Structures are given as structure tokens and as C-alpha cells.
């Protein structure tokens, strides 16, 4: 064990820090759940890509830097420290990208990865359906094979970023006789294809962060299929694995929230200290964010040494989503009567982005497999309890 960075890792951190200091927009971008904000974030992805900072873990041939997991964690730390914009293409770069590298043909990698890296193609997810939420194997949307086309019919929902995205990846039933996990196929669909209707769904903040998508005889080329026909479940599990794993929620995000929470507490100590539970919650928030960081480094080091991610990784989504909720709940308590105010309200001094974060934190225990589903997975696969 050696818990200090190598000179090379320190130099990498300096390089990231210097580039971000020069390029991160001085004014925060608008929300990517607005048309203008979406465009700003797409531009930011292109800027990142020009500096070759878009996908640092990708191989150099694909515009990445071939970084290992520790360098990736360092990159994320600097990224959040610099308050750089959120990644509008996270569905693509963090979820689909790694899946494409594992399951895609060379032609598909060439066609999709560079465009994803440049922010030309922003990706949405197409998993859930009205009748298939936690029970993803209940998917009914169909893709019927006709020659070198699939004809897609059905409905997807809770499709994050779909309102302005260019592409969607999702699972469709290609074998109408099949049940459950069998007969599903992973297909990449251009959202501009005739027959697609996108109905934006406003989220808690009133902005259309996700959408419902209707497919009415939508024709898609067979070469947009990822993996084999009928093998969609295995491909989707790989994607979900990345999602629950390290990539989507790096510790840096929560450590920065914890740091700002400590700051918020100190700024408001006169009022906040009247409720001793608040101080306790601030301490806990900071400790838990540290725990998440320490544990992630430990996993990253184990993986770099050839270890495998085990069933214990199912604990991570519960941990960070509850941590995020708790931190924002504490911030709301500190802000008191100001907590409900939108940031442009005249009396909203010092409220920062806490309300937005609080709203978003409500979704954490739900998306990417509800925490109840995660608990079942932990109990059955990690602890070996009976089904």
C-alpha cells in the first residue's frame, strides 16, 4: 500500500488543472434541459474534445488519452474542482461508449465513437417502458426484421436527454414469441427517423430532462444493431454495469458538494448551529463523501491490478444516492426559509444551486435501478440469501 501519487500522476493533475483553468467558461452554462443550454453544453463537449480531455480513458486512437482509472479519478477531481459544466453526453461517453468498445464492430466503433467524442452525436437512453421499469425484462417494444431493416414499434419512457438528443440506444423485442430476457436486441436509433414522436416530460424543476418516445413503424438499418440479435440482455447488463460502476458517479462530485456544505454551514453558523442535528449531518456528509472516495480508489487500484469488480459494487449506487440526498437535505435545513426560493428571487441571497441539487438528488435512489432493486441484488448475489 502506498497512498501517495506518483510524480507522473501529480504532473497529470497539473496538466488537467492548467487546461481547465484556461477553458472552463467563466459564466456557468444554462441548464442542458433547455434548448440554449443544450447547445452550450454540446459546444463545451467539442471544446473538451479539442483538448483531448473529452474521454480520457478512451484509447488514443479514438481521441482519448488511454488513462488508467487513477488518472481518471484525478481528472474528475480537477473537473469538479474547476466547476466545469456537467457532461451532456454522459449517456454516450460513460455508458454506450464502453459498451460499444466491447460489443461493437470496427465499423460501428468508427461510425459512432468519434462523433460521440466531438459532441456531434448526443445520446439518449431507451430502456424503460410504461410496463417495464424495475422489471426491464418485461420490455414489449418490438423490432421486426424485414430484409436489412428493423421495423420498430412501441413506446419508451423516462428517456434522459431525449428531447434534444440525436440518437437513442435501447432494447427492443426482436423475437415476438420470446419471453423475459430472451429475444431482446440492443439497437441504436437516430431520433430524427420518420415515425418517431418525442413527447417531453417536465421534471421536478419544470424542465424537460426526459421524454416519452413513440415508435410507429420506424425503419432502422440492421447494422445499427449492437451485438447479436437476441443477445440484447447481455449487452444491456454490460451498460448497466458501467452505469452502476465507477464511471457515472465519481467521488469528486460528492466531495465538492461536501466541501460546499461545510462552507455553507460556516457562513450560516449563527442560525444553523441552533439545530445540533445540522452540524452532525455536515460532519457525516463529509465523512461519507471521503468514504466514497477512499473506497473508489481502493476498487480502482484493485481493478488496475487485474482484479474483477464483484457483487459488492452493487453497494455503491445506494451509498452515493443516499449521500447526495442527505447532503442536499442538510443544505436545505441550513438555508431555512430561503431554501424554497428560486435563485433569481430577490430574497434568495446565498442560496446558490442547492435547490437544483436537492431536486436532482430525489432521482438518485430511483434511476439506474431503484435502490430497492439494488438491495435485492446485494442480498442475493453478494450475501447469498435465498431468492
Amino acid at each position, binding site marked *: 500500500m502506498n497512498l501517495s501519487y*506518483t510524480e507522473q500522476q501529480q504532473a497529470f493533475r497539473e496538466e488537467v488543472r492548467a487546461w481547465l483553468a484556461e477553458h472552463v467558461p467563466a459564466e456557468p452554462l444554462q441548464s442542458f434541459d433547455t434548448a440554449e443550454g443544450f447547445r452550450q453544453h454540446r459546444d463545451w463537449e467539442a471544446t473538451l474534445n479539442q483538448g483531448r480531455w473529452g474521454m480520457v480513458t478512451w484509447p488514443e486512437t479514438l481521441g482519448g488519452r488511454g488513462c488508467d482509472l487513477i488518472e481518471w479519478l484525478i481528472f474528475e477531481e480537477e473537473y469538479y474542482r474547476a466547476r466545469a459544466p456537467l457532461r451532456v453526453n454522459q449517456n454516450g461517453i460513460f455508458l454506450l461508449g464502453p459498451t460499444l468498445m466491447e460489443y461493437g464492430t470496427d465499423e460501428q466503433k468508427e461510425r459512432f465513437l468519434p462523433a460521440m467524442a466531438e459532441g456531434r452525436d448526443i445520446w439518449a437512453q431507451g430502456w424503460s417502458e410504461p410496463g417495464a421499469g424495475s422489471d426491464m425484462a418485461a420490455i414489449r417494444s418490438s423490432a421486426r426484421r424485414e430484409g436489412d431493416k428493423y421495423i420498430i414499434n412501441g413506446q419508451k419512457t423516462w428517456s434522459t436527454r431525449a428531447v434534444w438528443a440525436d440518437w437513442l440506444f435501447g432494447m427492443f423485442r426482436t423475437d415476438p414469441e420470446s419471453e423475459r430476457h430472451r429475444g431482446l436486441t440492443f439497437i441504436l436509433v437516430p431520433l430524427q427517423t420518420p415515425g418517431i414522436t418525442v413527447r417531453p416530460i417536465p421534471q421536478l424543476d419544470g424542465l424537460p430532462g426526459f421524454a416519452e418516445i413513440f415508435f410507429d413503424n420506424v425503419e432502422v438499418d440492421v447494422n445499427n444493431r449492437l451485438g447479436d440479435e437476441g443477445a440484447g440482455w447481455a449487452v444491456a447488463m454490460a451498460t448497466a454495469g458501467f452505469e452502476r460502476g465507477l464511471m457515472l458517479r465519481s467521488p469528486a462530485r460528492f466531495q465538492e458538494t461536501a466541501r460546499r456544505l461545510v462552507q455553507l454551514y460556516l457562513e450560516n453558523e449563527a442560525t444553523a448551529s441552533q439545530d445540533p442535528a445540522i452540524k452532525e449531518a455536515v460532519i457525516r456528509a463529509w465523512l461519507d463523501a471521503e*468514504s466514497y472516495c477512499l473506497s473508489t*480508489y481502493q476498487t480502482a487500484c484493485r481493478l488496475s491490478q487485474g482484479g474483477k469488480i464483484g457483487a459488492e459494487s452493487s453497494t455503491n449506487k*445506494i451509498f452515493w444516492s443516499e449521500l447526495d440526498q442527505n447532503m442536499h437535505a442538510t443544505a436545505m435545513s441550513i438555508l431555512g426559509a430561503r431554501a424554497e426560493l428560486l435563485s433569481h428571487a430577490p430574497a434568495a441571497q446565498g442560496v446558490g444551486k442547492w435547490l437544483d441539487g436537492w431536486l436532482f438528488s430525489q432521482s438518485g435512489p430511483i434511476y439506474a435501478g431503484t435502490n430497492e432493486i439494488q438491495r435485492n441484488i*446485494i*442480498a442475493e448475489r453478494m450475501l447469498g440469501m435465498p431468492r
Partner: protein
Amino acid sequence: MDFTFSEDQLLFQDSVRDFLVNEITPERLRAGWDTDSGREPALWQQLAELGLTGMTVPEEHDGLGMTALDFVLLAQECGYVALPESLVNHALVGVPLLRDIGGELAASWLPRAASGEARIVVALEQNLLAEDAHVADLLLLEQGGQLYALEQGQFACEHNQSIDPGRRLFTVTVNEGVAPVLTGERAAELRSASLNRGALGCAAQALGLAQRMVDLSVAYTTDRKQFGKPIGSFQAVKHHLANVAVKLEYAKAPVYRAAYAVAEDATSAAGHVAHAKLAACEAANLAAKNSIQVHGAMGYTWEVDLHIFMKKAWALANTWGDAGFHKQQVAQAIFAEDAVLGAGATFQ
């Protein structure tokens, strides 16, 4: 950056675990409760033969010269079996304190500590009572800011019964005329270092205790049937144990980092230890709470083994600094004006 244990460290953990699980059975623990001392010299000797009593003794004093980082995984295994012998105190706190006191005292006692001939026990004022003072060959006692090195006959001890029948706790009175070995600033320094080591030992044992309670609960809920099914197949029961698994999983890395900081003598060790102890003892307390719940009425009995581990977890949570003390340590670190927090600060 390498946050992993070496293969040797992991192999040693495995072999110690095998030994302890085979030897320290709940039946043996129960038999020990009824004896006068509650301790077994023969078992202590076995631990010595495994190299455990001498692990942290410097090589020039016939030990293996290992550190808190080498010992932390073993302390975890001691927790897993609720080992009543004060091995963690001896190896993780006593031996390093003796080494730091140095001089004649260290030179004469360390070789005997290594061979297992002498049990070293440390008791700080923070602990209220001295564990295993009755069997200590050398009791390193902090009282009134002074540090005493006491052999049997130089102090009187009065037994205080704990709800954990495996623990033996004593009020210690130093005989008149016995002089301290250290006073003043150096005594305070060594007291702080010992407190860090003792709290680290509690944290590591708490990880093991939590794991043992989870294992017992998984076995019980797989076996016990109601409504025609194992109760462990019900989500309400599953989720109790899954919640423990989450807390326990995220308590491990803080404990290992604290062990690293202690081994490196880092100035930040107290903060890391506080984090480790809070996280691990909370995991063990949750394990106790949820385990008794999924055991139902069985968990409330003396007969089922769960209480052995539950009671030890409860006790460790409030010794070597209770939660309030350790939260205060953390608060001082994070609310300090010059505190460096946030992304990228963890390992700087």
C-alpha cells in the same frame, strides 16, 4: 498510488482467519466466561506461536518488525471470532508504546512480548477502565497525564462486570510510591499515539464483528422457514441485511487508510482514525440492530450466539473514544480555517 494489501498480507490474514475460526468457537468462548480469569494461557501461547504476539515488535528485539498496516487485517479477524484475549491491545497498542518509551524498559520487555511470555496491556484515562489488567504482565497505564509501567503487585485492581461476558474490565489503583515512567509533554504525545492505535484496533475489530453478524444472520434467515419459505427470501428481511452490507463495505477503506496513516506516523492520523472508528462502529452497531431483528425472538436470547458479537460491538463503540469524542476530532479538522477539503484533497 496503490490502495491494496500485498499478497503476503492477504495470505497471512487467511491463515490467521482459518486458525481463529477453528479454534475460537462460540462453545469455547462460552466455556471461558465461567472461568476466573476468562483467559487461557495455552491459547495465548498458540497465538504467540503463530507469530502474532511478536508481529509488531522490532526485529532487534526478536519480533517481526511489522506495522499497524500489517496488523489491521488480523485485528479484523480477531473481531470476527470475538477473540477475548487482549491480542489487539498487546500488538497494536502495547508493543508500539513500549517501543516508543524505549530505553531499558523496552529492551527488557519487548523480547518477552515477542515470544508471548509477557502480555502488554495499555489503559488510558479515556477508556475509564483497564481491560485485562488482571493478566497483564506489564500494564502501561495513563493516569493524571502520567504514564506508569506496572507489573503485577504494583497496582490493585477491582473487577467491573460488563454485559459482554468476554470482557474483563478493572479499576486500577497504583500502589503508593510507584513512580511514573513518563510525564509531561512526552507522556501526552504517547498517550495520543496510543489512543489512535487503540481506536484503530476497535475499528478493525468492528469490521470483523459486523461481518460475523451478517454471516450469522444470512445463515439463520436461510434456515428459518415461515409461510412455507425461508424468511431470508422476503425483501423486508433481505433489505435489513443489505443495508448492513452497504455500511460495512464503505467502512473498510477508511479503516485501512487509518492503518496506513498510523503506520506512517502521519500527523493527520487522529482524523483518519476518528473517521475509521466512527464508520466501522456504526456499521457494527447497525449489524447488531438488524441482526437481532432478523433473528426474531431467538436473537434476544443468551442461547443463540448472536449476542456474543453484538455485545462486543456495543462495547467497542464506546471505548478508545466514544462517537462524541471522535466526531469532535473530525469537526476540528473540517471546520478549521486552514482546512483543505473537497475533490483532490483526500490524499494530499
